[in-house]
């Protein structure tokens, strides 16, 4: 008897209601038993749609037109309902906030079981089993609203697992998480795949954390499958492509004309060691151009003019008693590019919210542009210090991009005569001209991020503060953003960046501020701070450590690679 495939997609094309262009066109994909499939592609390439096609949400929930067929465990998805498919295919979504229905983790995990009408004895067994296996037992009596993002997403995973699905589909499950929770989540997935033989289909843009353990990588481009094969094959395939969804390390060696690039930091390190040993180069001879840039930093000449932003003895205590900042002394001069890094809850966001007066110090003093923030209101400080929060959706309130910029200009009391010039400049810098009259809601995530940035940049604040601009953003968008920020900085403006993305930080910043437990742990040139950290450093540095210690950025790594080769 022929074996029934779990998921079998044949020539699938799909159009969302009211759309002429298909979101998926002629996609064929077959998931083998026990397989771990990684789905990559730029935003808008059809990853989410393909995920939803596997459990019938497309087309049942969304409507629209469909061609071709999707069979799940022998059932045609167009002929049966989502709730019946749910027992075979479990799905975890992007934002944990949008998929949890209950205030209690136990009730949450039981929700799906209640829906399929399981009796209480069986339910109890499954709930406890799943909680134990995902190490969630400690959260039993917590409220969902008290949990961290990573814990919420694990509860969401548990609630799906409890239904004993055969296939697990995940649509960018880590895009809202910090890197440490993300890594934890992805390794949990890996062990589920290893030990239980669950078929996993994972759409993910943070490829460096899961690339190496995928059995197969499927690249989507404009709704079509551009490539499908093993990670190593994918790496070789992408050498000639204009954009690449690869871990930074793999990409580095690929650009260094390596035909069999390493997939992980470990492999990269071994390769570097091998090359270095073969060539007999010494540590000092590598990365020669790193030297001079080190001395630039906050040079002596700049020291003389008063700092643009300074804090002294800054403490911040929240209403619930959390000491978010505990004595921060800091000076930032005009024209610096500073990255603020550190784990979750280390006080990064709290610190930068003091720079435009959103938060006032509980103790100590914050001076911005020579004014004490305590005496000046936010709207006034905002003229010097523009700030962009984590979520572009909170930023955008107007009906189109132009309106968005004009709202800001009006609030900033910029004379109306200058509006056209300023808007044109912002459009030009961020390359968003085509979206001038479009509603930000209709744009993709990366495009929206740029419009949100434009709504701040348009009045040219001397200080620009960005809180995690790269969360949930694909590689291509990240590179453009980095270029925009460096350009803005080169025009003499100060840029302060709060981020978890160390490769991104190293790429564009000059100075790095490492925070922990409400204090500044390290502060200085990026080479000093990052190269001296064991954990808070880039993959490039981890790879070249011991051979070329000063390597932090991609360009430096490329140069180092040339030297040792």
């Amino acid at each position, binding site marked *: 008897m022929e074996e029934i495939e779990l998921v079998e997609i044949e020539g699938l094309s799909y159009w969302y209601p009211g759309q002429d262009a298909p979101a998926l066109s002629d996609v064929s994909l077959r998931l083998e038993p026990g397989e771990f499939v990684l789905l990559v592609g730029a935003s808008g390439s059809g990853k989410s749609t393909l995920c939803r096609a596997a459990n019938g949400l497309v087309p049942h929930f969304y409507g629209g037109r469909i061609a071709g067929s999707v069979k799940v465990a022998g059932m045609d998805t167009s002929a049966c309902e*989502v709730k019946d498919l749910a027992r075979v295919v479990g*799905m975890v*979504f992007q934002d944990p906030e949008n998929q949890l*229905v209950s205030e209690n983790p136990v*009730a949450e995990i039981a929700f799906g079981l209640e829906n399929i009408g399981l009796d209480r004895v069986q339910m109890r067994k499954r709930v406890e089993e799943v909680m134990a296996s995902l190490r969630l037992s400690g959260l039993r009596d917590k409220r969902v609203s008290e949990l961290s993002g990573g814990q919420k997403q694990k509860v969401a995973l548990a609630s799906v697992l409890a239904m004993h699905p055969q296939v697990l589909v995940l649509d960018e499950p880590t895009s809202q998480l910090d890197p440490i929770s993300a890594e934890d989540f992805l390794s949990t997935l890996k062990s589920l795949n290893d030990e239980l033989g669950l078929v996993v289909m994972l759409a993910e843009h943070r490829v460096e954390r899961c690339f190496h353990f995928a059995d197969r990588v499927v690249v989507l481009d404009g709704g079509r499958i551009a490539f499908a094969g093993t990670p190593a094959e994918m790496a070789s395939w992408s050498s000639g492509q204009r954009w690449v969804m690869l871990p930074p390390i793999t990409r580095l060696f690929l650009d260094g004309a390596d035909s069999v690039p390493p997939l992980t930091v470990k492999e990269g390190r071994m390769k570097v060691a091998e090359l270095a040993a073969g060539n007999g180069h010494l540590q000092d001879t590598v990365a020669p151009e790193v030297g001079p840039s080190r001395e630039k930093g906050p040079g002596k000449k700049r020291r003389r003019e008063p700092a643009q932003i300074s804090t002294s003895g800054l403490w911040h205590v929240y209403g619930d008693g959390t000491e978010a900042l505990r004595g921060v002394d800091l000076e930032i001069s005009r024209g610096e590019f500073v990255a603020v890094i550190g784990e979750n809850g280390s006080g990064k966001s709290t610190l930068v919210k003091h720079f435009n007066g959103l938060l006032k110090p509980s103790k100590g003093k914050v001076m911005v542009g020579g004014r004490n923030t305590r005496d000046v209101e*936010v709207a006034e400080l905002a003229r010097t210090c523009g700030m962009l*929060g984590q979520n572009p959706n909170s*930023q955008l*309130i107007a009906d189109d991009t132009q309106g968005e910029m004009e709202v800001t200009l009006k609030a900033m009391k910029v004379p109306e005569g200058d509006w056209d010039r300023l808007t044109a400049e912002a459009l030009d810098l961020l390359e968003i001209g085509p979206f001038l009259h479009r509603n930000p809601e209709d744009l993709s995530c990366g495009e929206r991020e740029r419009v949100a940035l434009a709504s701040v940049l348009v009045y040219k604040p001397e200080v620009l503060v960005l809180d995690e601009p790269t969360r949930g953003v694909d590689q291509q968008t990240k590179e453009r953003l980095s270029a925009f920020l460096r350009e803005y900085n080169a025009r003499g403006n100060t840029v302060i960046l709060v981020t978890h993305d160390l490769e991104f930080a190293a790429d564009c910043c000059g100075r790095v501020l490492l925070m922990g437990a409400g204090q500044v742990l390290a502060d200085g040139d990026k080479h000093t701070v990052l190269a001296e950290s064991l954990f808070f450093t880039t993959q490039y540095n981890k790879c070249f450590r011991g051979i070329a210690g000063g390597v932090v950025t991609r360009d430096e790594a490329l140069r180092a690679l040339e030297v040792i080769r």
Partner: protein
Amino acid sequence: MLALALSLMVVSLITGNPIYQVAVILAAAVLAFSAGVFKQWSSWWKLCLVIFVMALVINPLVSRYGATVIWRGPHVPVFGHLFITAEAVAYGAGMGLRLSAMIWVFALITLTVDPDNVLGLLRGRGAKSALVSALTMRMVPTMMSDAGDLLDAQRSRGIVSDNGGRMAALKSRLPLVKRILKTSLDRGVSLAEAMEARAYGSGPRTRYRDYGFKAGDAAALVAALVILGVGIAGVAAGFLSFTYYPTLSMHFEAGTAAFFAVPVVAAFALLLLSEIWKRSNWLRLRV
């Protein structure tokens, strides 16, 4: 806890006696302590104080009852001759105390009662509306944080201003309402999708939790009934009567003190029981 708090509330409503109100507040404090939420509970004092002072100030000004005039004011149109009586002040204070007692008890309910449990009591009828209410409770913190983010972002852009009067502040926030509604709607749709993906609507649902009666619930219910019963009895028997007008008078005899003590004693008894419960395995294994 719910039954207990409700009984305290009813008792506080039916008696006008200020000393009894103090007893009710005390009982609520003890219960808050035993539930481990004393700190949050006591943080409601500001609201209580405001209400108390308002009642204290407003009543004497508008009330024309009472025999002991302590201040004679000028003639004001509409209000007529202003005068303040000691009884009216006392009545205002009594009212304030009563309102405060209600607020304290309400605070206790808010802090201790899990909405899921209340909805669990409604099982059988209206499972759907129970689910909707549970979802609402679940989404409230999310929406609050969404709104906080939005407000921060717009303050950073100078669109929402901190000063310039209430009307200006309100006006500058109006455009945000649309955005909040939109965000909530988006979340709602995503949630619906996620629920469907977890087989919601597959036919009759079962329930994971058993909202059965436990020993602790029985003790609480007994205490609640005692408080309620004694309160009603006290009012009926006139033990708890307290009249403000025309002159202050209170019925007082030996039994009255006992009535006052009932809510406090009941609350303490529960506290004691719960402490014993926590420490004694013997009791736990037998009940």
